[in-house]
C-alpha cells in the first residue's frame, strides 16, 4: 500500500502546487515559471524551523513558512505589474535560476547541493505522522482545505474579478476595480499554497535538496496545469495525479533498456505537443 499512499501524498502536494500555479497562470494571467522556487523556500523554511536548535512544532513552522511565501510570492510577481507577457516569462525564468543558485550555493542555510537530511516527521498535537498512511490523511486534509478555498474564492466575486483581469485589465479598472490589489491577492494566495506544499514535501521526504525545486519542477507544474486544465478545480487535481502517474505507466512500454529512458521522455514530449495541438484546454479545463 505504501506505494499507492506515497503516490497519493506526492500527488496531493502537487495538487496544492497546481492550485497555486493555476491561480497565478491560469486565472490571474501572471505567467510565472518560478513557482518551484517559492515551493522550495516553503520546504527549506519548514525544515529550518523544525530542525533548529530550539525547534518549533509542525503547525507553527507551517504558518510562518506560509506567511513568508506569501510575502515572497508577492515580491516575485511584482515585476509582472511592470513588464508584461513574454518579458515577464523571462524575468520569471531568471528568478527561478537565481533561486536555484541560492539553494545550491548557500550551504549554511540550505545544506547546499548536499541537501538537508533528517527533517523530522510532523507531530499534530501529540499525534505523530510517521507512517505513509497517516501522511495520506494529513495531506488529504491540506489538499482538501486548499481545494475548498480555491472553490470558494472562484465562486465568489474575487473569482469573477480575476477572470475579468485576465481578459482585460483596462476594462476592469474602468469598471472601478483595483487591478493591482486583486493581482497581489492572487499572488499572495498562490504563495500560501506553494509554501504549504513545500512544508508538507519537506517533512514527508525528510530530505530536501535543490533538485526538487529547479526549473524542471516549475515546468512540470505548468505542464500539470495545462494537461489537467487551466482555471478549474478539477484541472488542478487531475493534472498532478496524471503526470505523476505517467512515468510509472510508461515503464510498461517495452523498450530496450539502453534507450528506455530517453524514449520515455520522448513520449512525454510528444504527449505535450499532441495536447497542445488537439486539446489545449486540457482534460478538464477552460481554454487557455
Amino acid at each position: 500500500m505504501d506505494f499507492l499512499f506515497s503516490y497519493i501524498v506526492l500527488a496531493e502536494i502537487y495538487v496544492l502546487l497546481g492550485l497555486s500555479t493555476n491561480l497565478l497562470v491560469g486565472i490571474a494571467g501572471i505567467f510565472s515559471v518560478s513557482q518551484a522556487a517559492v515551493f522550495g523556500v516553503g520546504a527549506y523554511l519548514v525544515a529550518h524551523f523544525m530542525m533548529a536548535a530550539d525547534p518549533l512544532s509542525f503547525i507553527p513552522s507551517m504558518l510562518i513558512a506560509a506567511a513568508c511565501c506569501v510575502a515572497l510570492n508577492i515580491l516575485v510577481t511584482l515585476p509582472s505589474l511592470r513588464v508584461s507577457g513574454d518579458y515577464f516569462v523571462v524575468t520569471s525564468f531568471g528568478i527561478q535560476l537565481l533561486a536555484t543558485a541560492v539553494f545550491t550555493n548557500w550551504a549554511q542555510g540550505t545544506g547546499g547541493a548536499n541537501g538537508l537530511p533528517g527533517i523530522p516527521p510532523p507531530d499534530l498535537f501529540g499525534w505523530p505522522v510517521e507512517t505513509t498512511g497517516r501522511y495520506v490523511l494529513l495531506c488529504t486534509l491540506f489538499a482538501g482545505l486548499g481545494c475548498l478555498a480555491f472553490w470558494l474564492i472562484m465562486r465568489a466575486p474575487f473569482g469573477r474579478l480575476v477572470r475579468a483581469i485576465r481578459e482585460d485589465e483596462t476594462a476592469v479598472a474602468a469598471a472601478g476595480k483595483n487591478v493591482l490589489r486583486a493581482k497581489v491577492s492572487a499572488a499572495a494566495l498562490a504563495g500560501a499554497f506553494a509554501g504549504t506544499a513545500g512544508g508538507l514535501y519537506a517533512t514527508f521526504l525528510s530530505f530536501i535538496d535543490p533538485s526538487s525545486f529547479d526549473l524542471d519542477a516549475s515546468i512540470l507544474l505548468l505542464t500539470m496545469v495545462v494537461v489537467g486544465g487551466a482555471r478549474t478545480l478539477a484541472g488542478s487535481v487531475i493534472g498532478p495525479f496524471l503526470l505523476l502517474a505517467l512515468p510509472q505507466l510508461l515503464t510498461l512500454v517495452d523498450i530496450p533498456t539502453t534507450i528506455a529512458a530517453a524514449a520515455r521522455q520522448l513520449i512525454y514530449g510528444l504527449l505535450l505537443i499532441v495536447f497542445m495541438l488537439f486539446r489545449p484546454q486540457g482534460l478538464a479545463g477552460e481554454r487557455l
Partner: protein
Amino acid sequence: MTAYLQVDGLDHRFGGLRALQECSFTIEQGRITCLVGPNGAGKTTIFNVITGFLKPDQGSVAFRGRSLDGLRPQSIVHAGIARTFQNLRLFTDLTALDNVLVGISGQFGEEPLGAILRPMHTARAQARRRMEAMQTLEHVGLADRARDLVRNLSYGEQKLLTVARVLATGAELLLLDEPASGLSAGALDAIMSLLRRLQNEGKTLLVVEHNTRVVQQIADDVLFLHQGHLMAQGTPERIISDPALAEIYFGGAL
C-alpha cells in the same frame, strides 16, 4: 457656483503630436452632451484624461468642485464617473450577467480572505448583487441574454451591455465612446431610447458620436473639438448648421 464637470486647460502630447491643446469646457448636470469633431481631434484622449487612464501634461479636471487630478481610474469611478470604450472591451469569456457584476462596486468576497472565511455571507451577498445586476440588464433590455457568453451576443447587444456595465458602477456621469457606431437601425433606436431614459433617471451623459442624426436627436449640448482644442460649443442645430465647422468636419475626415 462650480460647474458639474469642469475641464480646464488640458494639454497633452504623444511624442511630437499635440493631441490636446488648452482644451477647456464644462458640462451641466442632467444633460446629454455630445463630443464631436473629425478623427484625431482628441475626443478619446479627453475621455482617457477625465477617467484617469492618461495623465495630461497640463491642465486639470474637477467633478462637482472636487479635483480629479492624480486619481487612479478606479478612484474616479468611485467618485462617480464611468466610461465605455469605443472597442467595447467586454469580457468575452464571461456571461453578460458576470460582465455587469464586475461593474458593481463594494462587493463582499472580492478579497479572497473574506470569501474563504465567510462563505455563507459571501453567497448571500452574491445573491443580492445578482438581483441588482439582473435589474440593470433588464433596464437595457438584455435580461434574456443574462446567461449567455458575451462572444455569442450580437454587436448591438454588446453595445447595450457596455452601457449596462457602466450603469452597474453606480456612476452618475457616464462617458460613452461612440455608443451608436456600427449599429443597425433597430439597434440604433434601442440605444437612443436607452440614453434618453438614463437622462430622465438623472444621469448625466458625455457622448462621443459621429452620426449627426444621432447627435441631433439626443444632444442637449454639443462640444466641437478640433486639433485638441474646443472650437465651438452650442446646441446641435447651431453647431451642425455652421458651415465653417462642417468644412472642418468633413474636410478633415477626407
